[in-house]
């Protein structure tokens, strides 16, 4: 089974702090994604990566950056956390192939609260 793990289930940070959210997948997938999930808004794509050191902006990249130094790891960075970044953050990975969008495998999520 594909396993996508996220470093924390719950995180509480203060406004202005730099926050790192880590995601690791164990299936050698090329593609990795970061979303935030908010009630009534569904999932919104922040960034994705289709290869090591490659990244693409999603719909809401402002206030976030990402890092992918190794294939299995994709980090989301909040440079200066703000209260409006309080949310559930979901990481996903997917393979590349003829049907490269076949399935995204999601992690359990990190619920971040910014005070």
């Amino acid at each position, binding site marked *: 089974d594909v396993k996508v793990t996220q470093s924390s289930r719950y995180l509480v940070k203060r406004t202005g702090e730099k926050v790192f959210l880590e995601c690791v997948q164990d299936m050698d997938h090329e593609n990795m994604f970061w979303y935030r999930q908010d009630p009534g808004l569904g999932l919104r794509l922040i960034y994705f990566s*289709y290869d090591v050191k490659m990244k693409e902006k999603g719909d809401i990249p402002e206030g976030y950056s990402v890092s992918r130094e190794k294939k299995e790891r994709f980090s989301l960075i909040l440079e200066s956390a703000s209260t409006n970044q309080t949310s559930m953050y979901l990481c996903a990975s997917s393979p590349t192939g003829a049907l490269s969008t076949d399935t995204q495998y*999601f992690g359990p999520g990190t619920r971040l609260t910014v005070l």
Partner: protein
Amino acid sequence: AQSVSQHNHHVILSEAASLELGCNYSYGGTVNLFWYVQYPGQHLQLLLKYFSGDPLVKGIKGFEAEFIKSKFSFNLRKPSVQWSDTAEYFCASMATDSWGKFQFGAGTQVVVTP
């Protein structure tokens, strides 16, 4: 820009009732379409997907969805629900000329009562 809308935010129904969840996407080009489900306390997982071919697709746990291109719709159906179908359901699309940029709907919370 593409977007996805789901018709209902909350649905409550009894066991054995039929379920239909509406999903419409807005994009004039070719899209891949998905339904994901999130059971309480669990990860999001894929229910079914449509890329091309037969517009009626079958997924896991007895779910099916029909792609109607003229209506820009991809509605999810199940003839007879069980209590274990209580979950949040998300419709998603990805335009084939915008690889990786998935759009998710707001989700529909489904509660099945015994």
